[in-house]
């Protein structure tokens, strides 16, 4: 008998962590194999579904960091109280940790783009011996938009963290400027042995990859995570298709050599 992948299951909300007014992390009961970079469809009857990346993985839970932007996500924020959510997944290929082992790793994240890579950064922040060097450049619009502040503080102790905001009204502890400004300043021993992961809004990804190529990081060492409209997550509905690729099946994580051939 074939499994019915469309029917969601009920997952209990174990905890809610409020980062900003419109961005919360929901800690959801879940037991099973999940990789950072994979995603779940969060489902609210009457409102539909939204693909959300796992931002944290534990023995009996997954974290979903959700930004309130529309129909489904509004409803999640309005009605989650002490309750549960309907989920299906995990979907997508996710990040393969092994690719980054034994190399210098640079992770560049824009805004909520930090969620899908949080698992990767967290893993290596705890296993710094498994990489030659480890840098995170994490950019947000304003100091109020910063996500995962506690993680960022913790990560600072074991790795190189560059936290930037596009602009700040008053004093701030973080750097001010775009993530791309910090790429030429990266101190790397061997660019050919450096891998980079870039996740964020389309424009930020474009210029960050350009920046990495400019400093001599080979394109096959760059990985990106793509977002597209999705309805099924199962390679059927066609909404996420670009060229010969289905973002939900073949991605969302792509090597840049593949990603650059995808013409919307």
């Amino acid at each position, binding site marked *: 008998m074939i499994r019915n*992948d*469309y029917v969601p299951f009920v997952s209990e909300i174990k905890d809610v962590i409020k980062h900003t007014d419109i961005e919360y992390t929901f800690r959801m009961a879940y037991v099973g194999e999940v990789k950072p970079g994979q995603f779940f469809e969060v489902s609210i009857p009457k409102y539909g579904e939204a693909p959300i990346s796992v931002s944290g993985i534990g023995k009996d839970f997954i974290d979903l960091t959700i930004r309130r932007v529309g129909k489904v*996500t509004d409803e999640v924020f309005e009605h989650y109280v002490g309750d549960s959510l309907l989920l299906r997944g995990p979907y997508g290929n996710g990040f393969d940790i092994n690719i980054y082992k034994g190399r210098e790793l640079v992770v560049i994240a824009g805004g909520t783009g930090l969620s899908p890579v949080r698992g990767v950064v967290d893993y290596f922040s705890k296993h710094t011996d498994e990489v030659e060097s480890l840098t995170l450049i994490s950019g947000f619009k304003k100091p109020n938009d910063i996500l995962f502040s506690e993680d960022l503080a913790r990560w600072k102790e074991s790795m190189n963290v560059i936290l930037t905001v596009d602009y700040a009204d008053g004093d701030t502890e973080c750097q001010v400027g775009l993530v791309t400004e910090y790429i030429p300043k990266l101190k790397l021993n061997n660019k050919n042995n450096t891998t980079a992961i870039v996740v964020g809004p389309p424009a930020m990804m474009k210029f960050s990859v350009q920046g990495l190529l400019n400093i001599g990081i080979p394109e096959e060492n760059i990985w990106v995570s793509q977002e597209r409209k999705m309805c099924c997550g199962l390679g059927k509905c066609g*909404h996420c298709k670009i060229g*010969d690729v289905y973002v939900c099946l073949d991605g969302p994580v792509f090597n840049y050599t593949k990603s650059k051939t995808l013409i919307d």
Partner: protein
Amino acid sequence: MGYIATNLELDSFMSELAKKYRIFAPKRFVNSGIFSDTDCIRYGEISSVNEMVFDEKSQYSFKETILPIIQTLFFFTEGNTNEADIPQKDIIVFLRSCDMHGVKRLDDMYLNNGPADYYYHQIRDKVKFILMGCKQSFENCFCVSMGTNRTDRYDMSIDQYDDIYRIDCKNKVWQKQLDDMNIPQEAVTPAYVTENSTSVSIPENLDFTVTKSKMWDEYDTRCIGCGRCNFVCPTCTCFSMQDMFYSENGKVGERRRVWASCMVDGFTDVAGGGSYRQKKGQRMRFKVLHKVHDYKQRNGYHMCVGCGRCDDICPEYISFSNCINKLSKAMKEVSK
């Protein structure tokens, strides 16, 4: 095994089949065509062979018989989800060679691209196909170019000649029924065409650089993004999800999937106003390359089966086959 049956004989055979199967075939829907006073030939349930239309091409393909336009996936009740019932009765679908090749595309999409689709699988398991031979090519058909003009993947074939039917039956159970009815045997090969008035040639060197060609711009203003070309296509498989509610409080309802189209507005819209392929020409490019380039890259054979329904239906007289034939020139343009 070949048989020659009269209308009466075939009809009584069909009424036998109708006891076990729901039978779908092209039917005439009077005055429901796209222009006034025109009929629409499309799929509907039949119980007699006399309801079928043999001598015209159906405007819509067989697709809706195994991939419903609207399909309920499950129901929501207070805190619960209940799977929708799957039709119990077996199904027979009458179709032509190009469409039989279309079934292979639907199968590869719904059973092999990612995990097998539960709902499609349930219906597909119950379907038998009866081929309608093509004695002559119809307007805009280009199956010969696509290599889809012949097939031997059928349970039975039926060709109509005046008042007799030439049948080739591969299904053992049905053979026995025909034998029991004493229907005379004779070797039968289903009719098929060997040439069409339309032909296409897909350049060998076709690749994504063709996206840079100016040829796509022509469609920016000509195409109105109505998506009809997708809906009549036997190989288009896209859908969107929709939640429907029966009560105001939103406690009881259903989630469905409905056919979608890469040619219409909103297909790629994401939160915050993001959208891809806003221009109609870019959508045309995406569709055309899917049918004759990137599907093949993924599956090893072309998606388009050459039924020509997209050309038949387009209100703007945009010809898909013409567009394919412009690709050679476009490749030259971009490789300069």
